[in-house]
């Protein structure tokens, strides 16, 4: 077995040293009734050739996003990832390192986490960011719990245009706390008046921008209403590239920003692993969940980095911790940091505008089709159109090699005539033409 270095002789010598006759003697504490005596009904070991064949055959049964015109978003986006990103994150010193609890031999991880935190804070317009959460959805749940700790209030108001999976996760995470979650119905054509629902019991309002249907909204009036009532605004960003074109949530008054960072540096991966971004104001730092990296000095006065403010965390505080989270999305945050360092301000802004322009071109190409109506006036790289029986349209176009978007009916029963589409820098004019003609045919 290629991953096991011990030889038969080694095993014998080691057993002799231990004074055991057989390795099963070392399992003597396992109750006899519970020991497996027969082989499990699973195949035996295989070499790289056979395993590769098996896995490749599974991979070949999937249509990939690169196989044809592709316009699917809804919380996960297909973007170009520079070749150097994958090369660098595959370095064994990053890939096979542990959580940097021994800072003297983890400065590589710690320094990029410090860089990552700074990038995320600047992008979101907040003072501080943590070293990442599992993903945007779980980060969102943590933000609601954090708002409760800060405000000592129990009512969270969720926008109806928050990604439905995110709203589901918030409901799951608060199922056994005594929080009250007010989840509003979706408003696909935009125009939700969430500010009117904020009262003196409200701990937070959770609003996504751009929202699930792609609408861009001004968070400022919502922030003002929240702050007047003593509540917090949690802003959710599922497409982080938008922050290169749109005012930051911090600038619009958000108190906590959670985001899905997958778009920068990370592949679609059928839904994971992704990268939870979590940022907030300075004064709430000690209520944050997750790891934080901070700057300090070593014994000789040289700059160095350590994990800090750990007294918030489960390994120190146990049942009194701010969260039970331990693992973060380390390697995904490294991919983000590298990609963002490559882009820089200039590259990010250009990337964002390319996304927007392609989405505008896509919207214009399909809005004129009889039976298709684009609902959005303000959007970034994603929008919603009304088209009869969207699920059937998506299925039909998939048969023609075009992934057209996601039907809203996948998330909401009753919303059968809505299709959510995204465009990125990877879509060509030909992709857009192909979708437009196929859509035209489908709705006739």
């Amino acid at each position, binding site marked *: 077995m290629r991953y096991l270095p011990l030889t038969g002789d080694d095993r014998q010598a080691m057993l002799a040293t231990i004074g055991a006759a057989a390795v099963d003697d070392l399992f003597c504490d396992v109750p006899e009734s519970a020991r497996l005596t027969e082989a499990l009904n699973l195949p035996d070991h295989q070499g790289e050739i056979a*395993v590769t064949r098996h896995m490749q055959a599974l991979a070949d049964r999937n249509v990939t996003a690169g196989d044809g015109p592709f316009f699917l978003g809804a919380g996960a986006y297909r973007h170009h990832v520079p070749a150097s990103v994958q090369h660098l994150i595959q370095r064994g010193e990053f890939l096979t390192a542990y959580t940097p609890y*021994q*800072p003297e031999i983890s400065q590589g991880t710690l320094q990029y986490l410090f860089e990552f935190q700074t990038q995320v804070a600047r992008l979101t317009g907040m003072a501080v960011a943590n070293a990442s959460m599992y993903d945007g959805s779980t980060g969102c749940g943590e933000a609601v719990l954090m708002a409760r700790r800060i405000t000592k209030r129990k009512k969270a108001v969720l926008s109806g245009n928050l990604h439905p999976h995110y709203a589901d996760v918030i409901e799951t995470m608060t199922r056994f706390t005594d929080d009250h979650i007010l989840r509003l119905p979706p408003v696909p054509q935009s125009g939700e008046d969430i500010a009117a629902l904020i009262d003196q019991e409200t701990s937070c309002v959770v609003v996504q921008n751009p929202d699930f249907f792609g609408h861009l909204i001004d968070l400022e009036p919502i922030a003002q209403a929240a702050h007047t009532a003593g509540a917090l605004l949690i802003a959710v960003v599922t497409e982080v590239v938008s922050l290169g074109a749109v005012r930051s949530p911090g600038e619009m008054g958000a108190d906590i920003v959670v985001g899905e960072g997958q778009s920068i540096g990370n592949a679609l991966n059928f839904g994971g692993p992704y990268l939870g971004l979590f940022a907030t104001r300075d004064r709430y730092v000690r209520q944050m969940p997750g790891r934080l*990296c901070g700057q300090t000095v070593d014994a000789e006065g040289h700059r160095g980095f350590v994990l800090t403010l750990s007294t918030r965390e489960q390994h120190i505080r146990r049942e009194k911790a701010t969260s*039970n989270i331990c693992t973060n999305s380390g390697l*995904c945050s490294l991919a983000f940091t590298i990609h963002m360092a490559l882009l820089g301000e200039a590259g990010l802004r250009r990337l964002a505008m390319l996304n927007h322009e392609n989405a505008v071109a896509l919207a214009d190409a399909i809005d004129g089709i009889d039976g298709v109506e684009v609902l959005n006036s303000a959007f970034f790289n994603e929008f919603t159109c009304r088209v009869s029986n969207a699920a059937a349209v998506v299925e039909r176009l998939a048969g023609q090699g075009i992934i057209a978007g996601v039907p809203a009916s996948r998330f909401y029963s009753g919303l059968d005539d809505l299709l959510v589409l995204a465009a990125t820098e990877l879509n060509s004019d030909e992709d857009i033409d192909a979708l437009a003609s196929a859509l035209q045919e489908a709705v006739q």
Partner: protein
Amino acid sequence: MNRQGRPSAPGTVSDQAPKTFTGHQGLRLVEPLIFEVGAPDQTGVDLPKPKGGVNRLGGLERAAPVDLPGLSEPQVVRHFTRLSRKNYGIDMGFFPLGSCTMKHNPRLNEKVAGLAGFADVHPLQPESTVQGALALMDQLAHWLITLTGMPGIALSPKAGAHGELCGLMTIRAALEARGDARARVLVPDSAHGTNPATAALCGYVVDPIPADERGRVDLDAMTAKLDSDVAAIMLTNPNTCGLFETDIVEIARRVHEAGAFFYCDGANFNAIVGKVRPGDLGVDAMHINLHKTFSTPHGGGGPGSGPVVFSEALAPFVPPPWVVGGEGGFTLSETTGPESVGRMTAFHGQMGMFVRALTYMLSHGADGLKQVAEDAVLNANYVLETLKDVITASFEGPCMHEALFDDRFLKDTGVSTLDFAKALIDEGFHPMTMYFPLVVHGAMLIEPTETESKASLDEFIGAMRALAQAARDGDTDRFENAPVFAPVHRLDETQAARKPILTYQEPVPAEAAE
């Protein structure tokens, strides 16, 4: 010998090292932050120029600069390569970090996970276009169910603690469904911190149970606390002392008799995979850290993956999504059933980790996985046996996959567990887990894993013995200043916490400061 033919002598490194112009010391390179190197108009990605028409951003255009530096590709590659060299990883050497299972991460896993058919697939594509992905999830589920002997599964939890949350919420949902709200969860003193934190997140009061003198759950103490108000016990097995809970079957029986559930923290499954099925022990729910037992990389802290397996009693309450096989192929059931605890995360879980874990399972097979457990246990016992005459072992008898020592052997030496760990860095090793579990003083928890050779263990054992001797001999210098051969010396964690600097701040220009 060097190229000039002059012998290079050991021990000539001293504090007399020359002060260099750059601050670098050969391969010990000082690396600035990207914010000190990059420029706002520089970029390492060549993108087409936008056409620049009228935008439809609704007046929400970003006006203020983001203030992000850009770097060219060569600068980026060099920066992150230099950073990487300040890290220790399994690829570099022995990583005996107890409770973390730092085993070799096979590169085949990485190659397969990078296949476009897995990496470039969107979670919301029509089911007809993702049959391979659904088949993979189904196969992974089959392996986990077979290896654990437990019929229910939730693949979506993102990491171990997330799996714990999933498991404990499921237990609470099951109890509430039978109208039996309970308030307490029993957690041993030796448990991972995530266990009590998770119980608290589920609204439970944590009730600690002590260990007995053998390092196991004190059966009598546990039984005394078991009443109709206890929802569950959370137990790690093998436990965090590296010991199999000998009374586990009886514990499960008593827990069930009291109407409670048995949650098992599966962090240490590596010790028993292929040898013992948790389902046969009476476990009701257990998460499996794919990044421990099934070799997906730790990645400097994540991402992880924590699927949870369930007993028959809990299966109706597991979170969506579920992969369902049928004649027409696989479908993905995404709606929450009436009894389900609800969605744990967006989409379907850590697919990239599922691919790696299944690749690993197929590589090892049933026979290889059994060998994994046996070699992991053999390696740990070898370390225990060869060190216990000089370093105090905390408990009698053989251990499972990790060996627990404490700091009694350092009594009156002036050397602490922390010092000892830092001295190990100078010896070229990643330290063992220190000060955990909390049930012994100055704990040192050593988990070699099965992917270490005997030679590698012998070198480590030699270093440990030498350090123990040095501590006894009063050679405290090598401990007090350790590590001296790391990229940085000991860091001031107190300062970091007292005045937190969590993001880069531009230095204030001299004239402005005046």
